[in-house]
């Protein structure tokens, strides 16, 4: 049976099924609904957890770091300035190999203040070692939260589940929930081998001499890349259990496409409409949606994109002085195999209608390489 839920509610429901025992968060729009809902579950006893109401986002993540290092599954959520305020601990927790899951409602960053959606907040945290998965719907927000725990706890890396602020966080859609049994079958109890214990006392994260540190980073890098396989296995396994199948990169109407639009997040739904309309006008165009951004599924992208002649990437986060972040990633993966044009379509919640995507397509199609803002 389908229920009508916002992506925030969908994540809260997923968290309830995953049953973290320690939760800590700090309010920030548009994330707040997630933890408000979870606070209700905790208060009513539907979720047996300790909820620690801290004074800042960096403390929220710190609480979760302390709990996970002690071997207890945890959860936190944030957005925008809250995420930026956590920055130091994003590095710390990934370097410390803690399998933390955090929901992020994507929101622009100031100055000037802007509460609306773009992906600058999470994309600017790209190099912290956190995995990042981007939902395009409430159903994905729900499923990806459960999947994030599965993968994080198998590869010992933290993961952000990203949902577009307001567009997803505050918009209700009909979704299918899963049973507790299904989640229990999929997700084994949390067993953290590095948890502190009296039996075998050790120092967590002692100072390493440079050569050892270098090796530790090499391991981290290797495991972050290998995590792609873990995601694929988890997608498959969850698909078998839930009937909902995902891939790191999803294709739409790519069969005979000469050009593909590439995007990430909720824009994907709007882009489908744009692709249908363009197809109606005889344009041979398809859509590629990136679901998994870290680890970045390079080969998967190369495999499906190498059949097209041209890619137009829709960016919602930029590297100032360079180009759109998603564009950079796509170019990096294709390494010149296919010409890529990046279009920054919306920062700070500028409305993205199908017409805008059509415009981006025509702007990009005319030029083989480069970038532009519309």
């Amino acid at each position, binding site marked *: 049976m389908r229920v009508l839920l916002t992506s925030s509610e969908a994540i809260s429901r997923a968290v309830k099924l995953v049953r973290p*025992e320690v939760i800590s968060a700090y309010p920030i729009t548009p994330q707040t609904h997630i933890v408000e809902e979870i606070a209700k579950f905790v208060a009513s006893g539907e979720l047996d957890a300790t909820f620690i109401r801290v004074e800042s986002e960096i403390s929220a993540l*710190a609480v979760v770091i*302390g709990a996970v290092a002690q071997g207890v599954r945890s959860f936190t959520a944030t957005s925008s300035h809250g995420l930026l305020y956590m920055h130091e601990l994003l590095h710390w927790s990934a370097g410390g190999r803690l399998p933390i899951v955090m929901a992020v409602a994507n929101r622009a960053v100031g100055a000037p203040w802007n509460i609306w959606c773009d992906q600058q907040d999470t994309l600017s945290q790209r190099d912290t070692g956190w995995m990042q998965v981007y939902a395009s719907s409430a159903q994905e927000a729900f499923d990806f939260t459960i999947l994030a725990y599965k993968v994080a706890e198998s590869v010992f890396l933290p993961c952000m589940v990203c949902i577009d602020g307001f567009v997803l966080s505050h918009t209700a859609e009909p979704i299918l929930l899963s049973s507790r049994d299904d989640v229990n079958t999929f997700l084994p109890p949390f067993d953290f081998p590095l948890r502190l214990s009296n039996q075998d006392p050790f120092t*967590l994260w002692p*100072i390493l001499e440079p050569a050892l540190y270098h090796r530790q980073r090499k391991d981290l890098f290797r495991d972050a890349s290998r995590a792609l396989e873990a995601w694929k296995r988890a997608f498959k396994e969850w698909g078998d259990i839930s009937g909902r199948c995902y891939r790191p990169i999803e294709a739409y109407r790519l069969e005979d496409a000469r050009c593909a639009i590439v995007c990430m997040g909720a824009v994907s739904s709007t882009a489908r409409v744009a692709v249908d309309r363009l197809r109606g006008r005889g344009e041979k165009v398809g859509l590629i949606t990136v679901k998994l951004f870290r680890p970045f599924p390079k080969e998967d992208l190369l495999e499906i994109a190498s059949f097209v002649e041209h890619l137009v990437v829709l960016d919602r986060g930029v590297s100032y002085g360079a180009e759109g972040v998603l564009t950079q990633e796509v170019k990096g993966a294709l390494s010149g195999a296919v010409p890529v044009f990046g279009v920054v379509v919306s920062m700070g919640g500028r409305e993205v209608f199908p017409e805008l995507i059509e415009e981006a397509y025509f702007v990009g199609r005319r030029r083989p390489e480069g970038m532009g803002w519309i």
Partner: protein
Amino acid sequence: MDLKAFSYEGLSSGHLACAGCGAVLAMRLALKAIGSNARVVIPASCWSIIAGRHPDASLKVPMMHSTFEVAPSIASGMRAALNRLGLKDTVVMVWAGDGATYDIGFASLSAAAERNEDIIYVCYDNEAYMNTGIQRSSSTPPGAWTTTTPEGKLEEKKNIILAMYAHRIPYIATATVAYPEDFIAKFQKAKRIKGFRFILVLSPCPTGWRFEEKRTVEVARLAVETGVFPLLEIENGAWRITKEPMWLPVDRYLKVQSRFAKASTESFERSVKENWRFLERFL
């Protein structure tokens, strides 16, 4: 008190402290009172180094390094996790410098105290950012030389005890390595109490305070005997001086440390007196 009865050694040799480090003596005493059923959380500080380089960890209790500003929050998460695992008797102790306590971590300290987290928070106070090479903190006493106050600090030392008192936590104490019985008794008492406990440990630092390594205990004793560092405890709001000062001339304390070379004895004396007048309102 028979100190020999406290035979537990939670600190092994081979730690990386400077000779004469007050903070390392303090840890040894603290762990004697706390025992091995504990977790120690240490934010960026000299102690991040003292704890040792892999594979030579100097602490025998499970310990976790923290970033500079959030050790109380990490400890809160750890406490919650231990409780969920049924390990309510395991002590969680934050071991932080004055920089983490008075300055960069003040917000997270205040918040953990306000939530009355079941944690022992220890500030080993060496009155400056020592690990980065002796820079002033808000705990640095007036007139003291540091590398960022080459002419001596102009401001007073922040009164962290009063700040913590305002949080109405069940236990607050000060201690120093020159009085091990008093030190251990306070840690033992803290261990028996539930809720947020705050202990300020004056930790003389030969490197930063500029005195001979062998005089650490003497300097700590002088701090108490001159009235510069009051030994006290506040149990459920009730204040008590645990060691009356002898009111030796403040000069005795200042003269043994080159950091006070440019400090004025009169104004230092005045601030010590003022501090006591302030204290006496609560006694």
